[in-house]
């Protein structure tokens, strides 16, 4: 047996070896593999989560939200954590809209998950229920889903823009997701602890569109009504501001109720809408003078083996007459004075056969063949609007060039881009603001004015009289063209279209209405698309917030401005925007305040308006007196306070003046 000293040495050696192994292992774990173990430990007790970025909102030009992002929730239920499964179950089922069977199924699971998404309002009562776990998730919300649905587009399942402007503007709207680290327990449940934010989410930018929600609603309703009334296959309405190229409203509808963006993507032969562009070339190149006349050929003309007809035969026509009555024969004869290259160049300059450049993910170029591909009748066909296919947005921009003194602009749907949180009403910094983007000068100022004058004749005495307004001049052109179905003209199928400038002088609005294949009643644009245009203009005039510069509009109503003060036809000296903002209109002439005592409120206000006064009401019932008093003079446009009282009629009679009969003029 070894001596004790030896045994102690052995033990000491053993301990030393053990310690050395321990230190070695510690070095291995802590130093050599330290990083790996640290990462594993970190991964076990923490979790990196993605912080969703709030997607930017879309607003109309007045700040009305069209698409916003809101927090919604997925709901998880842990049945074993519920305090009172019966009572809690009833509440949860009610809020989540679960059937009794679905709830019983959920109770049998360890953890039931309901993706929803549920709104904050729906889950609010569940916040205090133990065992209910809410998982916030940002969702896109469209306050009025029917408004400009095809234009605005939608998001895909991946949360990225899938169609329309949501897709085009995705890089601006999406923002940048952030990241954070949260603590979790052994079972992987997150601790209720502050997250360590590694990168904060960057919200997307807000975009103010050029669309006017009220005009959009007017356009959609008018189009829906028209399609129903005419039993048509579909249609489009485009409204834009010719001075800026901003698209104010875009409505498209098909027979099946769908609303694909056909104003950008579907082409049609414009028919007589294109006659004005042949006239533009003829006037610009001075190939026609205002007095030049061509024979109407009794309404039927055979040329190049083809017969051209007119619906309204005329003995002879000037260029203006050809546009006014939409004569195929006259425009074909005049167009023969142009070379194919000149005719092609003018159509090309107006933007046909090319993309307009609007910020929409899909757009058709239409078809405009170069002269090398023309046949002998092509020149006449193009002058009449055949052998040419266009989109409604192209037509609107081309007519916009006529309205804009011959300058073609690039259309836009984006008015402003703002930093997040600005909304439409301000607050967020403006990152981009649209400026009119000229494409080219198509015709001179003088030629554009002459063409507008011709278009005005269409509404006053030609094929577009159904679009005429009483107080405002409108310039427009009708177009009725045969439809091409499967590459051939379909018998009895027509596209009725109408392009209008409102008002005719210094136009503020370009409207294009297209009705595809109307079945009921007339198929002519004069009886189909023109009345729709008038209806929309009337509604736009009566609307509160529609984007019309009413001070400028007032100067474009010479007929009304020239009317005598007491003319019942309607006086249009100026128009004030509402809410009222001072504008460039100056002080009007002084006029006598009419005596409206004893009148009903409506008649009294109307009488004062006719004289050109603004009216402030005090009281209700029968008009008693005004301030300034009846007979005093006041500047047109100044405020007249109208005092009324339900018993004023008796007092007026007592003063000796019989109350005027209803509707009498003061």
């Amino acid at each position, binding site marked *: 047996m070894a001596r004790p000293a030896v045994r102690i040495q052995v033990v000491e050696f053993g301990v030393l070896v053990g310690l050395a192994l321990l230190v070695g292992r510690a070095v291995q774990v802590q130093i050599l593999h330290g990083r790996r173990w640290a990462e594993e430990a970190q991964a076990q007790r923490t979790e990196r989560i993605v912080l969703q970025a709030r997607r930017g909102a879309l607003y109309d030009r007045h700040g*009305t*939200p069209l698409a*916003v992002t*809101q*927090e919604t929730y997925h709901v998880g239920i842990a049945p074993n954590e519920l305090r009172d499964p019966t009572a809690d179950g009833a509440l949860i089922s009610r809020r989540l809209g679960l059937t009794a069977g679905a709830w019983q199924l959920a109770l049998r699971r360890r953890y039931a998950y309901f993706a929803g998404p549920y*709104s*904050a*309002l729906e889950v*609010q009562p569940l*916040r205090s229920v133990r065992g209910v776990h*809410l998982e*916030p998730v940002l969702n896109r*919300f469209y*306050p*009025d889903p029917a408004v400009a649905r095809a234009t605005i587009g939608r998001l895909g399942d991946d949360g990225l823009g899938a169609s329309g402007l949501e897709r085009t503007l995705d890089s601006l709207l999406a923002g940048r997701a952030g990241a954070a680290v949260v603590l979790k327990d052994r079972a992987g449940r997150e601790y*209720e*602890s*502050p997250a360590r934010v590694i990168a904060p989410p960057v919200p997307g930018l807000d975009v103010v569109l050029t669309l006017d929600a009220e005009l959009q*609603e*007017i356009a959609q309703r008018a189009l829906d009504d028209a399609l129903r009334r005419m039993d048509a296959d579909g249609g489009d309405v485009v409204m834009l501001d010719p001075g800026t190229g901003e698209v104010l409203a875009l409505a498209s509808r098909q027979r099946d109720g769908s609303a694909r963006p056909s104003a950008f993507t579907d082409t049609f032969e414009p028919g007589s809408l294109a006659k004005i562009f042949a006239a533009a070339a003829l006037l610009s190149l001075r190939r026609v003078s205002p007095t030049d006349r061509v024979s109407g050929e009794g309404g039927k003309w055979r040329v190049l083996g083809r017969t051209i007809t007119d619906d309204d035969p005329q003995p002879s026509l000037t260029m203006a007459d050809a546009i006014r009555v939409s004569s195929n024969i006259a425009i074909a004869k005049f167009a023969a004075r142009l070379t194919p290259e000149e005719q092609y160049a003018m159509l090309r300059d107006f933007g046909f056969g090319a993309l307009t450049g609007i910020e929409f993910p899909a757009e058709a170029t239409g078809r405009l063949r170069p002269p090398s591909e023309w046949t002998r009748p092509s020149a006449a066909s193009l002058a009449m609007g055949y052998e040419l296919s266009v989109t409604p947005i192209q037509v609107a921009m081309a007519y916009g060039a006529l309205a804009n003194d011959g300058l073609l602009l690039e259309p836009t749907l984006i008015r402003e881009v703002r930093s997040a949180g600005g909304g439409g009403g301000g607050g967020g910094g403006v990152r981009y603001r649209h400026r009119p983007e000229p494409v080219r000068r198509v015709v001179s100022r003088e030629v554009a004015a002459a063409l507008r004058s011709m278009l005005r004749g269409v509404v006053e005495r030609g094929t577009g009289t159904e679009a005429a*307004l*009483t*107080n*405002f001049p409108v310039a427009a052109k009708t177009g009725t063209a045969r439809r091409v179905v499967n590459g051939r003209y379909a018998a009895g199928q027509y596209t009725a279209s109408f392009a209008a400038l409102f008002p005719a002088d210094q136009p503020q609005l370009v409207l294009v209405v297209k009705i595809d294949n109307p079945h009921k009643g007339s198929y002519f644009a004069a009886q189909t698309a023109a009345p729709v245009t008038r209806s929309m*203009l*009337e*509604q736009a005039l*009566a609307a509160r917030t529609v984007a019309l510069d*009413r*001070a400028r509009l*007032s100067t474009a*109503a010479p007929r009304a401005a020239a009317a005598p003060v007491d003319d019942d*036809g*309607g*006086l*249009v*000296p*100026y*128009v*004030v925007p509402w809410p*009222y903002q*001072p*504008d*460039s*209109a*100056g*002080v*009007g002439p002084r006029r006598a305040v009419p005596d409206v005592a004893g009148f009903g409120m409506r008649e009294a206000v*109307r009488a004062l*308006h*006719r004289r*050109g*006064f*603004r*009216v402030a009401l005090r009281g209700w019932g029968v008009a008693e007196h005004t301030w300034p008093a009846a007979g005093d003079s006041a*500047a*047109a*446009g*100044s*405020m007249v306070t109208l005092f009324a009282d339900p018993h004023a009629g008796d007092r007026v009679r007592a003063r000796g003046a019989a109350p005027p009969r209803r509707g009498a003029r003061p």
Partner: protein
Amino acid sequence: MARAKGRHWVALWLVAFLVTTWLVYARQTAAIHAARELGDLRGRRANLDGHRADLERRIRAAESRAVLVPRAQARLGLHLPSDSEIVLVPAPSGSR
């Protein structure tokens, strides 16, 4: 001044340890409390946002032409004016 003895050091270290531990505990508790409060406030804000959006949607629906025009026609006997019925009032001079 007498030098601190070993047990005094131990006591000092113990107190320092306890104070530090208590500080960590208090800080964690406050943070968890704040996180819970933040979560509640976030929930309330989301709820109010949702409520506001719902009200805005209802107001817009009620204000829309599809709702207003038929009601104004049926209940008040109003109609959409033709342009000849729209009386336009002159604006006063440029002063606001």
